């Protein structure tokens, strides 16, 4: 089986927003529709300060609250473990937006549907291997995309080596793993 996942190493994230604008371009989004949002924090006091930027997007949860609450079956998990939205079935009720603990679903007024990161992997990066636009664009290479069911994937190796963990514990069986 294929079960797609991602690693984001926030120790390498400079908060440059390249993943956001590349994603918008790849997925044809309007300027105000974003599949990736950012949390940032400071630690310490001047002059002994640290900071961290955390890009957050659909975690492609195995136990996905957005899928459970969807009244029409528009939100579903496909055979690669990717959480998807069937635009034709979406009635725009926004239950999923309220249910998502990561707040990464956006209502697109143009389509009337709710959208989010779709692991755009296989779509159009010929010659670059299997990757997503955010992975492809990251200036510091802080993202790794791959198959969690392939024990030899770079993704699985990196998760183990760097002790990457889901952002908020394993409550939804999230498939994006963070190094912090």
């Amino acid at each position, binding site marked *: 089986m294929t079960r797609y996942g991602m690693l984001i190493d926030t120790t390498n994230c400079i908060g440059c927003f390249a993943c956001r*604008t590349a994603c918008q371009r790849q997925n044809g989004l309007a300027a105000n529709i974003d599949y990736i949002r950012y949390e940032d924090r400071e630690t310490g006091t*001047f002059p002994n300060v640290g900071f961290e930027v955390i890009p957050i997007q659909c975690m492609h949860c195995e136990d996905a609250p957005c899928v459970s609450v969807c009244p029409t079956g528009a939100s579903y998990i496909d055979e690669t473990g990717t959480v998807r939205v069937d635009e034709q079935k979406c009635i725009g009720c926004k239950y999923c937006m309220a249910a998502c603990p990561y707040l990464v679903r956006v209502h697109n007024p143009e389509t009337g549907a709710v959208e989010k990161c779709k692991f755009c992997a296989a779509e159009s990066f010929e010659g670059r291997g299997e990757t997503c636009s955010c992975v492809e664009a990251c200036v510091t290479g802080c993202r790794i995309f791959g198959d969690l069911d392939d024990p030899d994937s770079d993704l699985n190796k990196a998760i183990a080596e760097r002790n990457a963990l889901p952002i908020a514990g394993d409550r939804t069986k999230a498939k994006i793993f963070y190094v912090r």
Partner: protein
Amino acid sequence: MSESTITRRGFLKQGAVAAAAAGTVGGLISYDAWSKAYAAADSQQEVKKVHSLCNSCSSKCGFTAHVKNGRVGTMTGDDEHPYCEGTLCARGYGYAAVAYSEDRLTHPLKRIGEGEFEAISWDDALTEIGDKIKAIVAQDGPEALALIMDPRPSGSYYTKRFMAALGSPNTYTHGVACNLAKTSGMTQALGAGDFTSDVANSKMVIFIGRSYADGLRPGSLHSLQKGYQNGSHIVMIDPRMNNSCTYATEWIPIRPATDLALILAMANVLVAEDLYDHDYVDNYTVGFEDWASRLPEYTPEWAEEKTGIPADTIVRLAREMAAAAPQASIEQGWRAATGCSHQNSGETARAICLFNTLLGCWGVEGGAYFPPSVSVGKLEDPRFAAPPKVEAKIAGSKEYPLAVGSMGVATHAVQQAGEGNIKGLIFYQSNCVGGYSNPAQLAEWTKAADLSVAIDVQMTETCKACQYVLPDTSYLERLEVPEFVGGKIPVVALRDRVLEKIHPETRPVDEIFTGLAKACGVGQYFDFTVDELADAQLKTVGLSLAQLQEEGIHAFSEKAWKPQLKTEWKTKSGKVEFTSEACEKAGFTPSPTWVEPLVMPKEGQFRLVGGKQTIHTHTQTANIAPLMEISKQYSLERPWLNAGVAKQMGIEDGDEIEISSEMFTGRTRVKVTERIEPTSLYLPSHYGRMIPEQHVSYNVGLSQMDFVPFHIEPGYGGTMAQEVIVTIKKVGA
């Protein structure tokens, strides 16, 4: 992990804001919606791949665009381009939206009243402008014309050729508000204006006021990341904890405008403790004794008073640099400390070069090097022959003798228009009025000129001040002359036509200047197309236009940089010059000594400092929706205030404050942060655009330059963008 885990509650708070923003912003049409509307007609169209060069900043990184239905979809950075090395920045993807912007200039415009324009035909525009230029040349000579531009491949070629054809030496770049003082100061010491720290292979690098992660050029950031990950000691000297500190072993805050004091004190330590490279100094430099005799007064304790950096830290840094040498250097900086910010910027740049000379780092792997480049050979076709050489010197070279002539002092030219000495001003892709110095002052002087013309893609402060506005095509709609780029492996790259022309009455820069030249009676120097010119230039290096269009980027691997101690210099003596007669004539000491900043904040005052954010370039990207939406969503327009100071003043994060300088007072919400030293207020340089025709950027935040008085750095010509004191107060307190 537990301490920093994001809570559901935290998520909800932020997400609610994002969701609200997403639901309410109107008028933005996405590619997706557009393509669905038009898909039926041409769903069979193939995706076309085109190599081109970005225009969102001066780096001009190479990319490949995937074009379908006449729209740009996926973009990827080109691996071979030394400035991007395969990854673009956020601007690269976002700025492509300029082509479809609803705010594009679509017709030639003529000013008919304050802020009012009417559309006119190209024939009328070119004839009227040409007649006025001919009249100025006849009456006051070609020296009464000045042209100001932000260099781009075709822009540089066509503007200089146009001015030379008219007999005028006055072609200026934006350098006065960028890297003019840096390049000029370095030229005095090294005979060359730029060097690159080999950060990737270094043992130690000190950055002074430059952040590769904010003024982002991906290739430079990759080098920093590699250096840091290889264990190099990376020191960020900056009033702000900038985003490059992700890859710094230490951040040392400094009071802005005092960087020269730090360098002088570190140099003093190297000389006093005999830690410098004697072999290099003895054999490849002149004038060392002069500097050595001046340094002793610059003790670390003296520098602590100026900079706020503890004396023992200064001593430690100097010793660590000596221990790491020659795999060590002070990075050259760009705009901030050395480029155009302070009364001592040029001398700071000169001192950096001389400090690095003491380390013997020139040309050595891990030290600092001069990237090799390839240039165009001689063009045989007589159509490309250069116009007669202009003997006159660029206006401002007498007043600012240290400013390199290749950039010139653009603000001086505008000032001269105000005084009646310059009669005609032409701007190409330059928001001089909005960004080079005090905008109200520059607008007044520009309006005083007999002729003023701005060529751009959107309405700007500069366009508003001009009599004529000519609409450029966007960078995605034109071929330009080839761009030769220096790097560890030098390349030639090409900006190509990614899209067909969108607005029929826009014209590419080559056609605009060809048309202007004909209207001015010097059309004989422009009897070729840009395609013919590009092909002829490429033939001189064994390529052709068709070949480069296919390849996108051609690397000259045989010219790759080979590390080797640099012992020959393009100075008068052929050596590194610790002393400079030109500097002495301009009122400085022969070798660099302390130069007081023009202003220093007292208790209760702040120095207003500027600086780039990764998603913007000066004022140029403010009206680009995918980029400005980020600013709005994350409140990036807010000035940064030190948290300790804010607490004392009773100001909290997000409070509205009033900022006042002698020039301007404005209100905005504030970001309270531990990431800035207490005497600085950092206002990002991109905001405060008040042009109603810019629907995206209008009235977001404040403009740094509004607060800055018009002045020019003595000798070097920089705009002294940070020589301004402000006070702040909480609104309603």
